[in-house]
């Protein structure tokens, strides 16, 4: 995706393929903190999954499986929304 296409190489009729943004990594937008999952206390409510702006909470077979750090921007919504008590099953932690 780094090499720029010449006009003869463009997809025809101004089309753009679906899902092509997956190749664009926004993980480097994080400012030093990333969400960390604590699966042992996670109740699998999936609220983190629906609240994520970047579709960066990975799910499989109806269960949350972790984070897509290549795209997670570190906004912290998932940790903020996580309802588990007394400890959250998602915490924002330093990446350094």
């Amino acid at each position, binding site marked *: *995706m780094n090499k720029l*296409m010449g006009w003869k190489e463009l997809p025809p009729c101004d089309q*753009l*393929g*679906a*899902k*092509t*943004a*997956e*190749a*664009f*990594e*926004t993980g480097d*937008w*994080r400012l030093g903190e990333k969400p960390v999952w604590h699966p042992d206390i996670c109740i*699998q*409510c*999936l*609220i983190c*999954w*629906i*609240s*994520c*702006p*970047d*579709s*960066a909470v990975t*799910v499989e*077979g*109806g*269960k949350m499986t972790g984070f*897509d750090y*290549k*795209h*997670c*921007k*570190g*906004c*912290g*919504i998932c*940790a*903020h*929304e996580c309802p588990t008590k007394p400890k959250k099953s998602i915490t*924002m932690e330093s990446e350094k």
Partner: protein
Amino acid sequence: MATLKELSTRKDPLTGGHRACSGCGFPQIVRMVCLASKDPVVVVAATGCLEVTTTIFPYSAWTIPFVHNAFENAAATLSGIEAAYHALSKKGKISKKINFVAFGGDGGTYDIGLQSLSGAMERGHDLLYVCYNNQAYMNTGVQRSGATPLGANTTTEPAGKVKQGKMEKRKDLTEIMVAHDIPYVAQATVGFWADLTRKAEKAFSVTGPKFINVLQPCRLGWQYKPEETMAIGRLAAETCFWPLYEVENGKYKITYKPKDKKPAVDFLKKQDRFRHLFKPQNAGLLEDIQKEIDQRWEELLAKEEKV
């Protein structure tokens, strides 16, 4: 209504890799609405944050068919697609049931897009229009729109020495849509996923024009910490600043009645776009805002009781 577990097994309309701000609120709206549809969805978006950040060539975050035309014509463009769908279905060229959704920001819906929205609703096309309402023209730098609330600071009606932000009340587009006599109109917030998803499901289950006005906090324009997007969206409903209701064939139903209605300041103080209102000389404005909220809430309650 589908559970989150069920929704998580469906095709996510968006991938990561788009350029929406960290902590944005519109992608969740897109996902909540599109995932609520069991049938495939075709999306048209107006020019704005949603369209611009998700389709920067050669990267598209959309996993479903997506068309962008211009700023003010999402509803008209989708009307054309819907009509063609009927034409081609009649000819036997298409047999799948497809749901049609237009996404427009408040700028592209309340203001420049109002005409084409009104026309589409009046003509009875079978489509859903969702306004992701962050109460200003955010993509171009937080300019005021017809949806900007009283007292808010925007770059074209800023708070300064002589003026205190927007001095006009916001347009009530949801009520304008009700006046179009369409089968389903609703107001929702990104902060309550279940309410919005249920409303989207309801919309997809009826034939004809549908409209959902979804409040979307914007961390950049409203100025708060990014992780609070969903929480502030909830606060808007808890203070009745943004009531959650639906109107089905003219019948009003409030879908969220806060047990203890919180004062408007609880909502306003969380956002720097209202910071100037907390100066002592603006106390009167704060009162006006509370009065407006209370008045609209009372009117809404009355409409519900009427049935």
